[in-house]
Every structure is written in C-alpha cells, then in structure tokens.
C-alpha cells in the first residue's frame, strides 16, 4: 500500500499537481505535516524545553530527598523517606506530563490567535478544522510524553533516598497515553477559551492549584484526615494522573483503584476534547 501511495505521490509531483486525490489522504497528509511542524518547533526550542521541564523536578527531588532528611524536616525525612521518594516519583512524572502538555498547547495557541495571527496558514491547510484541532492535541500529547520520559530518570535515580520501583507495564502503557492526551486537551481548551489577557494568570490560578492539590507530594488516600479536601481535589485531573503513575511505577504505595483512574481520566479526556475542539472552531470560524 505504501509503495502505491508513494508512486501516486511521485506521479502527482511529476505532473505538478499537489492535491492528494482523496479527502482521506489529504487529511492524513495535512495531519502528518502539521505534526511534523510542531515537532520541528520543539526541536528548535529544545534548549528552552529541557531546562523548563527538568528544573522543577530536579529542585523538588533535591529539597525533598536530600535537604529535608538532613535538616530534620518532617516531609521526606525520618523513617519512611524511601516511601516518600517512591510516591514522589509518580507525582513528578504526572506533573511534568500535565504541565508540558497544557502549556505547550495553550501558550502558543493563545499568542497565535490573539497577537501574531500566525496560525492562519495552518488553519488554511486543506483539511477540516477538527483535524487541525486534533493535531494540536496530538502534538501536545507527544510533547508531554517526552517531558514525562525525561523527568522519569530524574525522579527515579536522583533521589538520595531509596525508591521502590516496579513497573506495571499494562497500567503504565495505558495510563501514560491517556494522561498525555488529557493534558493536551486541557491545553487546547485553555488556549482557545481563556481570554488572552488572562494568560499571565495561568501560573497562579491554574498551575499552582493544579500542582498543590494534585497529589504530587502525598497520596490521595493520605488526605483522609481532611475529608472535604479529599473529595474536593477529585475535580483536579492531576490527582488521577499522579495516582495512575504511582499505580504503574511503584510498589508499597497506596493508590486509588485503577478502574476509577481510567474512568476519571477518560471522562476528562472526552470533556476537554469537546471543549477544546469546539473552542478552536469558535476562534477560527465566524
């Protein structure tokens, strides 16, 4: 099939015609090209992307697993310090996944819509607006996966205290794409629906509450003494991602039932895909 497609392309190129014959092929070609464009931009930005992704996890690992145990701070210190590093691992991977997925989609989109108009050329790509919106999610999901992969060794091997690591491959292989996709869909929603003048508030009004109430530094179950908070944080998708990565990576750490994690993340994925794609359409069509 591939050979036939290539031959077809060659024939078209030779004829000077650029148009794939079927709309399905045109859509796929445009989708691939848009994705390639976004990954090329990531490649250009690597010198910013890497420190941006790694800085916070490295700092947190250093403070929580090296400094705190030595200065006698409660968190991360005392007898169960190994357990703390282990639960932190899932949290840090989840945090990198959600923030890179969210920001790498939302920030450029918001800028391109409001100030620079540079999305124009991609919006005019010969495919449906839905495809272009989905491509944004796909590109964001790949970048958040990349962020998770580079943070994993930092969170797994850098801590000064032992980590009880055990991969549950099936859980890991399903939670990871689900978390990456959901993060990028949230990014598409924010990038298309948040008023651009409010974007500077993203860090304080979205990132901070997501992070602090995202079960990164504690398990969801540990919130038991504060029941209202325990149930309130369930609106935070990061809680399920942190718990999901813990379920997939560690042993000896309590996490919520995997079925609940799948159900919640899938629901968030559907909700934010709907909000993001319709938000995108609203911005580009009138």
């Amino acid at each position, binding site marked *: 099939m591939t050979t036939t497609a290539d031959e077809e392309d*060659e024939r078209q190129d030779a004829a000077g015609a650029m148009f794939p014959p079927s709309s399905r092929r045109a859509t796929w070609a445009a989708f691939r*090209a848009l994705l390639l464009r976004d990954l090329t931009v990531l490649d250009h930005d690597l010198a910013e992307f890497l420190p941006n992704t790694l800085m916070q996890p490295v700092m947190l690992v250093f403070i929580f697993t090296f400094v705190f145990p030595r200065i006698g701070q409660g968190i991360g210190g005392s007898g169960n310090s190994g357990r703390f590093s282990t639960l932190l691992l899932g949290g840090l991977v989840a945090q990198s996944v959600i923030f890179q997925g969210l920001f790498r989609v939302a920030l450029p989109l918001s800028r391109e819509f409001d100030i*620079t108009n540079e999305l124009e050329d991609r919006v005019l790509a010969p495919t449906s607006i839905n495809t272009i919106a989905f491509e944004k999610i796909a590109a964001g999901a790949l970048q958040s996966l990349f962020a998770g992969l580079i943070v994993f060794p930092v969170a797994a091997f850098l801590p000064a205290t032992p980590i009880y690591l055990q991969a549950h491959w099936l859980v890991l292989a399903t939670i990871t794409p689900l978390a990456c996709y959901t993060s990028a869909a949230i990014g598409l929603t924010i990038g298309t629906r948040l008023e651009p003048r409010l974007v500077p508030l993203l860090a304080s009004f979205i990132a901070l509450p997501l992070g602090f109430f995202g079960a990164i530094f504690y398990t969801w179950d540990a919130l038991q003494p504060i029941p209202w908070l325990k149930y309130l944080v369930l609106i935070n998708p990061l809680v399920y991602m942190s718990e999901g990565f813990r379920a997939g990576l560690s042993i000896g750490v309590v996490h919520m039932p995997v079925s609940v994690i799948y159900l919640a993340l899938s629901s968030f994925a559907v909700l934010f895909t709907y909000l993001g794609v319709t938000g995108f359409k609203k911005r580009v069509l009138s």
Partner: protein
Amino acid sequence: MPSPPSEDVIATEGLTKRYRTGSGRQEAVITAVDGLDLKVHRGEIFGLLGPNGAGKTTTVGMLTTRVIPTSGRAMVAGVDVVAQPARAKQFIGVVHQVNTLDRSLTVWENLYFHGRYYGMTAKAARLRTDELLERFRLSHRYTSQVRTLSGGMARRLMVARAVLHRPAVLFLDEPTASLDPQSRIALWEIVGELHAEGQTILLTTHYMEEADEFCDRVAIIDHGRILALDSPAALKHAAAAGKETGNSKAWLAQLRALERANGTGPVNGTSSLEVPGVEAALLEVITSAQRNGVTLDELRGQVTLESVFIELTGRDLRE
C-alpha cells in the same frame, strides 16, 4: 493546476452574511454582505474596492472558508466552500494584510511545511521551496528567522507561500499596505508575473491607482452590495458620461460668460480654465471654445478611479 469545471474560478450567488451584535435589548443584526453575486474569471486580476466596513473582508472570509455564510452559495474552482471547505482550501492561496508567517520556523521552513500541509512529498516541497525562494529573491535569507525580515521581504515570502501549492485563485488582501515604494514596485512586478502566467487573483485594496493600473475588472462595494462592476477604464468612462451634461453645461455657461465679456477678458486675448472631469466632453468643449474665439491654454480631464469611488461611496468617514 487542477482544472475547475467552469471558467469562473469564483462564483457567488446571493451570498449573504449577517452578524448578531450586542445582547438582549441591545441585540442588533448587521448585514455585512448582502446578496452578493460575483463572478471572477479565470486568469484575471479582480479588484474588490470599498471603504472600511463595506464587506470586503467578510466576502474574502467566506470565499476562503473562514466565515460561514448566512445564505447564498459560493464556489471556488467549482467547489462549494460551505459544503466542502477542506477540499475548497486546496484551491485557495491567501496573503493577509498582516504578517501571518510562522515565527517559530525559518524562512525556508515556512515554505517547506506549507507544501507539506498541501500533501506535497518531502522532495517536491523542497524543490518548490528552493525554486520560489530563488524567484522571489529570498534565497540569501533561507535560514533566517522570519521575525528578522523587512516588511517587503515578509510580504514577498507570504506571496511565495500562498502560490506554492499552485492555487486556482490567489487572494491578496491589501498586499502593499505599509510597504515602502521600492517594495511596492517589487511586489507588483511579482504579481504581474503571476498574472502573466495565468494566475487568477482577487485583490482588495485602498490604493485606487494600483487597482486602476493592475486590475482587469473591479467591483466597488459598500454596505455589502456591489455598486459598480466593470473594467477600471469603463468605470471611469461611465463616470465621465454621467457628469457630462452638468459639467459641459457649466462650461458652456462659462464660455458664454466669456463670450459676453468679450473685450474685457484676459490679457492678450488668452484665457486659462480648468475643467474637472469630463474627458468625453473635451472635444465639444474645444470646438465650442474655438467657435467662440477662446484660446485654451490648459485643459485637463480629471476622472480617476478614486473620484468614481468617492462618487459612489460618499465622502463620509467610516470609522
């Protein structure tokens, strides 16, 4: 180039767009484009002229799939832009008034990726990119970040990008706005070459002299309707013909006045009078002047596309 089924690359029928503004009691419906019937023939440069808010941008928006019409139909290269927007986009190239280049990519990548969006293979996109950079005199900047380009270079790159996939129609929205004279000349040279190769172009502009010089036909639109549609020469002629009676009457009255004032006229028997408008009446004016023994020093016909435009759309400020 694909062969569209009709010789009209753009054809609209009763194309209408109404917007709702405000809410509750303040809600109002604005008709931006009102039953537009427009045909743009293959290979022509068609100018869409109108004051701000006349409906030009909305019309172009509908033709380029970005604005959904309230009613009516619009076909580009035989494809219904509402029913098949993804397919219609294959036949459209757009140069916006503002810089819409992809700032995250280099000059070369802007063209290359554009080709890939349109389904070109990597090899074909590379070749076409190199060819266009050469032709648009941008090859020395191919690794530059687009934000470092001058206004003229950025606009040339946008035109190169818009024609890269060989669209059936090229939309140029105020292509020379805010360009220096040299860049403006360079851009019109490029547009002229594209036109000579048979590229259909729909142009919106405020520069009447440019529309006059480069457009095969122009439509003057206001309040979403076409007020006049013809070649610039025919529009000017029509305007001249329309004014003829009044102006020639005035002139004849003035001639008569001169005649009556015979002997008290200008020194040495020579008179200078400027006639606004009325190229068509000139012959009559000259003969009547001769008949009346008036020597004409200076006689000018002043009909321009701009005067036609102002006559049709009025002098009121629109914003």
